[in-house]
């Protein structure tokens, strides 16, 4: 059987292409579906654990009170549902957009060139960008938000602070807040969503849109701008390095950094990290400059590393 070389065999195309869907629509559908499933399942698991660990039946008031005293159970539910839906679920859904053999490639689950220097650069990048994030937080605070949303966010911030300051093993705290989100959210956003949007709209739009969605995904409007910046940065890192592993490391440094900061500096006031005063202009400009330099260096490192990987075998000929 001979085929016209310009027309791919219909059975070599992934399900999305065979059935007239666009990659971006599948990505949007999965972002919404995974978010709803993650919230529902996480809440369900947390409530079940709260009931299971209680010695007597609880009414709603007692449940709410118990929730405040056992935040670790809430985070267990949160982590389980992230692993199940954001991580594993995305891995399964990718099958719609890519053949089985190309699934890892679609999600950019491959090693980047650049070696240890690349990862050192990533760690440095996440440190130097903090003043810029601080500046965007200040800008975001100037944007008026409804009272009800402000109260919801204050409740979320208080919940997080109580958990970080609680008597929980640092390792578990690091896993819940650092490791799990940095793996699962990266698979969803920089793996699946970035690639799907890239196929439909190109890399620039994909990086920006996936970053903005990431920013609003956390349901914290007063932090949407800095979160979107982090999302865009992580998207760029994944695209430039052709791998989500550097983005995972960057995400881990960002999230894990806050855990370790409060562990080693317990007197630090959480509210001071979300400033209502503008950071020094010189610091912000320095942060922007340093960030751009490091990003350029990372791209160069990756390109050099990938070049070496590609042509390494020729050295032995």
């Amino acid at each position, binding site marked *: *059987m001979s085929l016209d070389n310009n027309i791919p065999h219909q*059975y070599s195309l992934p399900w999305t292409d065979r*059935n*007239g*869907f666009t990659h971006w*629509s599948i990505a949007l*559908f999965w972002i919404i579906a995974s978010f709803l499933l993650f919230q529902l399942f996480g809440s369900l698991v947390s409530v079940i654990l709260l009931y299971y660990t209680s010695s007597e039946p609880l*009414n*709603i008031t007692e449940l709410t009170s118990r929730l405040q005293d056992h935040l670790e159970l809430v985070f267990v539910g949160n982590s389980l549902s992230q692993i199940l839906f954001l991580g594993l679920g995305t891995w399964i859904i990718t099958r719609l957009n890519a053949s089985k053999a190309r699934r890892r490639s679609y999600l950019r689950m491959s090693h980047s060139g650049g070696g240890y220097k690349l990862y050192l650069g990533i760690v440095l990048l996440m440190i130097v960008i903090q003043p810029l994030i601080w500046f965007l937080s200040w800008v975001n605070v100037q944007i008026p938000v409804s009272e009800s949303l402000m109260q919801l966010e204050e409740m979320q911030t208080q919940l997080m602070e109580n958990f970080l300051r609680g008597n929980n093993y640092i390792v578990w705290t690091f896993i819940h807040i650092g490791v799990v989100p940095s793996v699962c959210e990266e698979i969803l956003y920089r793996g699946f969503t970035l690639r799907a949007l890239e196929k439909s709209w190109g890399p620039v739009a994909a990086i920006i849109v996936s970053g903005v969605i990431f920013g609003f995904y956390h349901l914290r409007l007063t932090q949407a701008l800095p979160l979107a910046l982090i999302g865009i940065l992580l998207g760029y890192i994944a695209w430039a390095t052709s791998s989500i592993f550097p983005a995972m490391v960057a995400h881990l440094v960002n999230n894990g950094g806050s855990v370790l900061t409060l562990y080693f500096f317990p007197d630090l006031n959480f509210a001071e990290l979300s400033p209502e005063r503008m950071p020094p202009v010189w610091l912000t400009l320095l942060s922007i400059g340093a960030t751009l330099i490091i990003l350029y260096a990372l791209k160069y490192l990756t390109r050099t590393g990938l070049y070496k990987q590609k042509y390494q075998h020729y050295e032995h000929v």
Partner: protein
Amino acid sequence: MNTMDEQLPSYQKSVLVGGGIVGGLAFLVNIISGYAQISAEPSVTILGIMAIMSLITCLVAMTGALISTWHYSQFLEQPITLGKGALIGLFTGIAVAVVSTLLNQMWSALNPDFNQQVMESVIASFEQLDLPEEQIQAQTDMLYNSMKNSGSIRGILSSIISGSVFYGILNALTGMLGVKLFIQNKIPPRDYIDISETE
């Protein structure tokens, strides 16, 4: 572009048919459940029944895409993809949201006390629950605010947007089902060559 897509008739009429019929049905279910709520004694059971009625409204709304795809199949001579069915379903869901919101607004204009009576009945049933006073007050305030805004432009737009997203997603799924049920057994035209049949 696929030459098959260029030969397809427009689906706008089918979307309007499906969206109009089901939007009207969803509005009727909403009105019936509202009057049932008003006439019943406040109790916790009523809240459960209202939840079931909301579920029935969703199920009714989901049939919009099935009607649209069935109507569209009358004009087709060739099959269409699931993606096209999902798109028809998405637009049908938006039409359902628009039609049901507009009909609700017309009903509010004809019967201004309807929403107020429904809200008072819901609050009275809510007070039967064994909840803390603060929580009941918070729910009451939320209901009151939503009723206050329901007639404003902002409230109408908010209702259309949230309805479009919700019904759009549901009907996108049933749109795919409709394609499977009504359209994929269509015989393609003679000049369409299935690649799997070539040698």
